[in-house]
């Protein structure tokens, strides 16, 4: 009963905000609606007793990625500007694509409904189980993918630094760094 009510509220928030995130004319509003969708999804994880996924969803998506999105939107030219609607051909084609995706997901979910029931647990999974599953080498333990993903993320970080410094040559970087240290030194002296 309580579960039903909470689920209906969460589902309504997810559905409504998903539509609003796509149809909103302002970028920053769209980001905020997406944030609501992500938070409500974390609520679904909480209902399923997947507390670890709840925490990760809130921390990584709501607290990490959305903050980055919003910061990035701040840095654009006019974050609050109303974006003009794209041509009707683009709208219809993307709507068709969305419907196709919905049908695909629906078929997969309906086919695997019985499997999903078996996976859902009544009890909270202990952190020890999750930790050993992520960093173990036995059956149903995933050390290799975990490490592969962390390597990929490291490559992304290094790549981001390279892209951010793309325009400057090595000498120029050194020059700028020297200037910066000089500036801070003079600043400290003046203090």
């Amino acid at each position: 009963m309580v579960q039903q009510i909470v689920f209906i509220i969460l589902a309504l928030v997810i559905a409504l905000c998903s539509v609003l995130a796509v149809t909103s004319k302002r970028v920053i509003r769209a980001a905020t609606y997406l944030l609501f969708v992500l938070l409500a999804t974390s609520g679904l994880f909480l209902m399923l007793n997947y507390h670890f996924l709840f925490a990760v969803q809130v921390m990584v998506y709501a607290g990490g990625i959305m903050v980055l999105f919003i910061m990035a939107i701040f840095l654009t030219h006019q974050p609050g500007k109303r974006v003009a609607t794209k041509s009707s051909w683009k709208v219809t084609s993307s709507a068709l694509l969305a419907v196709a995706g919905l049908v695909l997901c629906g078929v997969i979910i309906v086919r695997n409904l019985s499997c999903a029931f078996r996976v859902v647990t009544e009890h909270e999974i202990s952190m020890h189980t999750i930790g050993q599953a992520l960093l173990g080498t036995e059956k149903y333990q995933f050390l290799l993918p975990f490490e592969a993903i962390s390597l990929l993320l490291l490559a992304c970080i290094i790549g981001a630094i390279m892209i951010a410094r793309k325009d400057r040559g090595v000498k120029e970087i050194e020059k700028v760094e020297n200037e910066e240290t000089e500036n801070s030194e003079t600043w400290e002296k003046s203090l």
Partner: protein
Amino acid sequence: MNYKQPLELTGLIANLDAFFREHLSPFWASVVEGLLILLVIVALYAVLALILIYVERKITGFFQSRLGPNRVGKYGSIQSIADMIKILIKEIIHIKRADLFLYYVAPFFVIGSSLMAFGAIPFGKGLQAVDFKMGVLYLIAVSSIGVLGVLLAGWSSNNKYSMLGAMRSGAQTISYELSAAFSLMTVVVLAGTMQLSEIVEGQRYVWNIFNGHIPALIAFLIYLTSGHAETNRGPFDLPEAEGELTAGYHTEYSGIQFGFYYLAEYLNMFIVAAIATTVFLGGWMPIQVHGWDTFNQVMWYIPSYVWFFGKTALLIFLSLWVRWSFPRLRIDILLNLEWKVLLPINLFNIVMMVVIVLAGWTLTDLFPKLFGLA
């Protein structure tokens, strides 16, 4: 050994639960109990904020050689209640040409995040609303939402100062969250669990800060620093920096909306101190020595919530002391401190803690007889 605990609230809570279960159907009993817990937490949240505001103003006054509030009530003791009434009846000013939806939503992110963290703190024996298995992770996760409120507030105020304050706050909070999370993880390595009740129980005879000696002490200091920075209080109060940005991200807010930010700021200070108490200083557990039964009994006569609030108050005083002793940092110094100093130390510290735990060099491993583990 069972010690007498005459002032604990566990008996009262059990009686209340039995009373509701007897007179109501299970569904309505849990609804009523849930609402009661919500009421108690929200009331405690507000009352603690009022006390903290008074204490801060008074202590600040003493630090700056003045009296602090001293007109309303004896020693100015009901000054914050007067302020609360004032802030409640103030007009909420509507700004033109701003994104009103985001403007009104923003404070709720800040207060919601701090209220969610507040609800999971163990205040005493049996005084914890939810006890997740991943308790520490939960606290880190929900406290990371707050910065969104600050960012949205800064942007939707349609004010350059607010925007600058919000950008600073975003950079600062994201950076220092890393350090806070890493230092808590160091203790999780030591405690071997993330559940807050188990962490408290594991510190019955020796606090984590002593049990893990060098790395735990470093983690404690880093947690206090980064927690202080996350709450945007001096010397890390660049987002508000009244000299340059008037009041930063909440310049345009008035009345109760500003009150939300104000409340959340004070309660975040409390939450940081409370988490540090729970994780490093034994939480609500009274000081006990293995084998000294009379001493332990005397310590148990002091109820657990008094221990908890006492330890937390000590850390809050420390935070105020820091606030009024150091000048405000510049933004690049602030970010350098995090990324070039605290984070490398932290990563090294986790490895050191792992080595100490695996090699059996914690105090409980070295002297098991002292703590009744042999």
